[in-house]
């Protein structure tokens, strides 16, 4: 859904995403980093049980709420860091 512009050279960081070591571009928010890799689903809505993706990317909508280092946080408001533990709890849902 998104691609990185050629002039960007954000070095990758290694994080543990949903239990697996994953390399993601650094120097941006967790939400942007996941979107840049085509991982558009941020959470399963606890109310509707349907997948949600980030909507506003400025801290308003809470659609990108996920567990980051043990605390539920808005992924668009947290910078991605080496070694972060990120859990989206997507359950059995398969990502494109």
């Amino acid at each position, binding site marked *: *859904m*998104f*691609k*990185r*512009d050629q*002039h*960007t050279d*954000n070095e990758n960081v290694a994080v543990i995403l949903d239990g697996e070591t994953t390399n993601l*571009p650094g*120097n*941006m*928010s967790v939400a*942007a*980093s996941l*979107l*840049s890799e085509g991982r*558009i*689903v941020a959470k399963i*809505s606890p*109310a*509707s049980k*349907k*997948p*949600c*993706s*980030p*909507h*506003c*990317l*400025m*801290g*308003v*909508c*809470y*659609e990108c*709420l996920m567990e980051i280092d043990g*605390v*539920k946080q808005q992924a668009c*408001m947290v*910078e991605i860091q080496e070694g972060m533990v990120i859990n989206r709890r997507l359950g059995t*849902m398969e990502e*494109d």
Partner: protein
Amino acid sequence: MSSYYDSAVIGAGPAGLAAASRMAELGLKVLVLDEQPRPGGQIYRNVENASPATLQLMGEDYRRGLDLIKRFNHSSAHYESNAMVWQTSSDGRICYSRNRKSREIKAGHIVVATGAMERPCPIPGWNLPGVMGAGAANNLAKEAGLTPSGRVVLAGSGPLLLLEASLLIEKGVEIAAILETTPKLPSPNTLVHLIPALRRTDFLAKGLKMVRTIKKSGILHHKAVTKLRAVGGDRLKRVEAVANGKTVAFEAELLLLHFGVIPSTHLFRLMGCTMEYNDRQRYWYPVCDSWGRTNHENVFATGDGSGVRGALAAEYKGELAALEIGHCCGIIPHYERDELASPIRAMLYSDNLPRPLVDEIYAPAAGAHFFEDETVLCRCENVTVGDVRKAVKEGVRNVNEVKIVTRCGMGPCQGRMCGPALAEIVAAEAKTEVEQVGLLTVRPPLKPIPLGEVAEMELELGSQEQADLFKNMRK
């Protein structure tokens, strides 16, 4: 770190940066609490680290942020990034969370510069993955150098929708269609506003360039579109609408929505600021005097949060609030305040000349939106438009009562995403005006924080007083 400041500024966009710089230059002890990792707000997001290509694409209106941040960095104002304010009161107390720790500070003055947000508009399917705000795409470009890679549809109304379209065209993004809900012909009222706007040919030229870029691209561009709808299962597949009396459909990976910009008012409402409703633009804003002072002597509203007028006006409004606070702190006499304010007021006036024209062209109309019973209105609690209508039919007439009955607005976003449309729906259903159905009550914490953080807080400031847990429940 100190816990008392002459002035605390919340937000570091154009208004917050200008206000903080000016107050610090006057010699005040200033703290800036910014939710973002770097100063700039949304308009100047990440401008300090922007690549030459991004600076080039976003142009002079983005580059201006560099000067503003440079001035701010040179000032003595203390900057706290990633600082999420979760409680404020009109006596100057502020609680905020940063790096998993919460602390309380006290300030002689509070300058609220929390800016604006896109008007959330629940069209069918707006909660599907693949549907985003146009502002979100703009933020991703600035922050992370991301560009949409599949087929994109842009839909809604407002100058920022067309601006985003023209930026994406210049980047070579595949746009399936631009679907504007704006009427084909502007209302006759527009003519009245055209004359002052003509005095700002620079502004009009910018607008025309944008429209020309879109026209030249040959991209399908419908106006007066109705019944906008996002369709898909687990993610967006198709965008549908009615244009010229016919249903049109476009396969798309990404739908960017934009329905204008409204002030972010949670902080004002939390502090009990008197709010007024702008009937033409259909949003609430805090009542303030020409310096930005709200009904609370020491609480100021600046920038788009006090009424949407754009980045430059925000900067000027920030300066004016700073001068008044400088005067109140006894640093400058009133005649010096007025003398310094005079050129700023002139710039504010000139900047505003074309605004009524733009506002009139893109003014949202009551009932213009297609609210379908099945559409999810409150994403957090999965409450549909139909649930709300049902509550109103049963006799509920106020948004807060609807909230209690349906849970609409009770989730983590605290009604930020559903509040405006909730009021529209309740008013339409109850056959009354939006102003009559109330505003959702805002309570601390403004944003969810772990309870442990509150328990661990040092409460030096409040230690003289007994805890008053029911303070907010009294009127």
